[in-house]
């Protein structure tokens, strides 16, 4: 039997953080492909520490519902799940550990689908259209911004938008600047986050003076999308990420 374990951050305060994990898990269950699909979290139950005791399958694939490589995917998840690398033999199971979602090729497609959903039935102004990918960004972990640059480049290469820009909450280029200054009459702003939260619901709309999905300013119209991580097609990305690990080779201990 084969199991997929999706690891989310989770929250002690609200369900925003774990909701997409549960929703994607249910979509993957419906589409088949795994005998079991199980959710686990850092801050909710079941914890990563105990989830494997609830999994019946001998073959387990763990996919972190995180956008970028970093503290969680590299330290916390392997430590809490007791993994020693891409492939771990543990309590009679073979556990394969996939990388985070944001670097995966298909991520750019999910972002574009999110844009499509946002723009359906909406009128563009005459002029240029810019897509702005918004990341958290932090001085501590360069990788969190790398994912944004990577996806911006991939989308730029497809040539669908006049301009594709990167923007961040906690580092330069800062999102307010980018949205206000990018030379386009239409600005599509997409948070590349895994879940809704305080930033997507409150700080971003407040700081940018957004009035909802569509905000009309004198010189431009801003279209604000939901986070990429809550898009239904994230589920197929998670499943694809999992299937990819089946090719992981076991690194033999040569001593």
């Amino acid at each position: 039997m084969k199991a997929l374990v999706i690891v989310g951050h989770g929250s002690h305060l609200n369900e925003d953080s774990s909701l997409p994990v549960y929703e994607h898990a249910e979509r993957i269950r419906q589409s088949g492909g795994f005998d079991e699909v199980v959710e686990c979290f850092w801050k909710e139950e079941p914890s990563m520490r105990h989830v494997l005791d609830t999994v019946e399958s001998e073959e387990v694939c763990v996919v972190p519902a995180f956008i970028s490589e970093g503290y969680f995917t590299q330290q916390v998840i392997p430590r809490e799940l007791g993994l020693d690398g891409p492939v771990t033999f543990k309590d009679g199971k073979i556990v394969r550990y996939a990388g985070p979602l944001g670097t995966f090729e298909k991520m750019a497609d999910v972002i574009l689908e999110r844009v499509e959903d946002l723009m359906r039935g909406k009128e563009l102004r005459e002029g240029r259209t810019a897509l702005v990918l918004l990341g958290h960004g932090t001085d501590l972990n360069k990788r969190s911004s790398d994912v944004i640059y990577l996806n911006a480049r991939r989308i730029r290469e497809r040539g669908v938008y006049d301009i594709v820009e990167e923007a961040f909450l906690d580092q330069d280029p800062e999102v307010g600047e980018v949205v206000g200054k990018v030379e386009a009459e239409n600005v599509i702003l997409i948070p590349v986050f895994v879940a809704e939260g305080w930033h997507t619901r409150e700080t971003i709309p407040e700081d940018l003076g957004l009035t909802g999905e569509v905000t009309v300013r004198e010189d431009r119209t801003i279209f604000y999308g939901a986070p990429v991580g809550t898009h239904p097609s994230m589920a197929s990305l998670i499943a694809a990420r999992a299937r990819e690990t089946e090719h992981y080779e076991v690194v033999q201990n040569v001593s």
Partner: protein
Amino acid sequence: MSRTSPDRENVAVSSREAFAAWVGEAPEGRKFGQVVVRKLPSGGYEIRHASDAGSENLEVHTNPRDARDISKLTEAGEYRPLKSSPNLRRGWVLRLADDRELASAMNYLYPAAISHWYLLREGRLKTTSFRENAARQSGIYERVRYLSDEAVQNAARACCEDEVCLKKTLWDVDENTPLEMERGRGDIPCPEPCSVFISFARRVRYFEREEENTSDGNALTPGERRDLAALVEAAASGEVKMAREAEFEKPLNQRRMRYRRLTLLPKLRPEE
């Protein structure tokens, strides 16, 4: 090199079967946490809130995953970060076809509980002490390793007793220092400090530092003063609105107040 091997026991399978058998042996059902689980004469299983034992007008669910929605919010609509808190809502019944669905529903109501219940029964549940767990923490939780033994004891009394968590606390401060508390009467074992506890312990570490920086042991710390002020204000307004379950940074949090009861009351009533 260890490999997957057919002779290794599959804990998830064994615990599912053992739990179903245990339930099946008791025609009146088994109480587990706040629910009663019963084998139906017609086959299949039923789970309901123990306080709904005789109720008829319950919303009927047949999908085991509905248990997640049932366990998500309290009666008052508050989010439940800890599934073993004694605040599971009432008014529903889960009718499940077989032991797989039963295990699946139980894992949403009480995540990993039947595995731990089974392992404990078999004498094979591994526990992890607070000190081992704390040594593993990193980032903002790293500081919990500086908690004194006494603070760990008080944190566990405030956070883990049956009034606030129905699990039976099996872990200790370290291998030579048992927890001195009411460990709990229920059937769900707690083999290791959970993330809610660690988050609470982090707050208790702040309290302990304030204590260390207050020269006279009987003087109130700044945090204690703030909490008292918040209490007075709330009570005077006629409505003491408690903070959410895991909002430990807010004065009117129940676990925080339970901790204050252990450490502040002796200062306020030294003669008792």
